[in-house]
């Protein structure tokens, strides 16, 4: 057997092992995806329920523009993200919010909301380059939607109804709101409850 043939056999064996290892790793990732609990936004006790009409109001943004909250807005959904300039978790979430604005732009408008002194928020918008988002400062808005902790997000569907809500600490939490809307499951508690029922009925 020549050196060329021997090295070819060795290379094929190496490639075979590499392929099997890659296959096993990819399969393991798939299994992990299935096993771990979904990272969903935790819904807090609040006055509004999923499916309720979202409270409608007209507010003035920091840049002076009028922002319509809730209602049927030309068939587009609306994400209200409640945050605060002194909230570190909110800071960490901003790249995911920018990313979501691009990925979901076909159907979604994102509105940033907070309360307190306007000048602090204007500084926050400047520092974090948030000028492309409508930014409203309204205590009434937060109270209407039962916001108690930050960062908190409320997704309103195209018909002006509450689609999903929750505490959003990470990108996964934020995206879980969109998945919740697509799948018709309101929040992580509801999803886990349904999964428990499915497992019980199938005897798992």
């Amino acid at each position, binding site marked *: 057997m020549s050196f060329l043939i021997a090295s070819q056999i060795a290379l094929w*064996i190496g*490639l*075979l092992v590499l392929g099997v290892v890659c*296959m096993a790793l*990819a399969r393991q*990732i*798939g299994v992990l*995806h299935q096993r771990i609990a979904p990272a969903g936004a935790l819904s807090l006790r609040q006055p509004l329920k999923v499916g309720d009409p979202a409270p409608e109001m007209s507010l003035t943004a920091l840049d002076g523009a009028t922002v319509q909250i809730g209602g049927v807005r030309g068939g587009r959904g609306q994400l209200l993200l409640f945050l605060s300039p002194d909230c570190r978790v909110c800071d960490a979430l901003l790249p995911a919010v920018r*990313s979501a604005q691009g990925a979901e732009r076909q159907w979604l408008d994102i509105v940033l909301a907070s309360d307190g002194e306007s000048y602090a928020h204007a500084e926050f918008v400047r520092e974090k380059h948030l000028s492309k988002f409508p930014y409203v400062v309204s205590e009434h808005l937060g109270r209407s939607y039962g916001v108690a902790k930050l960062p908190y997000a409320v997704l309103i569907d195209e018909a002006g109804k509450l689609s999903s809500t929750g505490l959003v600490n990470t990108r996964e939490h934020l*995206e879980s709101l969109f998945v919740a809307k697509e799948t018709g499951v309101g929040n992580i508690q509801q999803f886990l409850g349904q999964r428990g029922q499915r497992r019980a009925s199938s005897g798992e």
Partner: protein
Amino acid sequence: MGGTSLAGTVQSFAAQMAAFQALLLAASAVHKAVRWTHSLTVMRQFAGVPEVLAGSSLAAATAFELTAGALLMLPAYRTTGAVLAALIWTLYAVLIVRAIVQGRRDVDCGCSFGPTSRPLGSFQIARNLVLAALAVFIALVSAFRGTVPTQGTFLLGGLALLALYGALDQVMALQPLRSGELT
């Protein structure tokens, strides 16, 4: 080997690819046989075969795959095997395109070796078209340039390529990221 000339190299490459396609077709047939009940559901829901014909259609598909695989391994019948393989891959690609056009992206096409979280899309179509093109290449080389026997190294190479194919299959079965995820 087929020699050191360009013609010999092309013949050897075609024989190598034939061994890979033969193993892939055999694996696909075994997969259908092992998961017979699931494959019957695929026949009905994905291929749209009526209930009464699902069993015989599945048996025919399995037999075609096994036959094509066996013919690809035999130098004298490699052209026929490659033509049969090209028809099989093209038929599967057409069925996938039909399912997508009909808005049935979430239907299980049975074209993955494990469970998949990814709806039907361009990857599945491209994969089948590449396999069909490879089969056409094997058929053309075998018909016009001659064939070389299937050797041990070709089988080993075919197995390695099958393992890489399986790895790609598993990676593409993972749940897709939402667009903009990495930005």
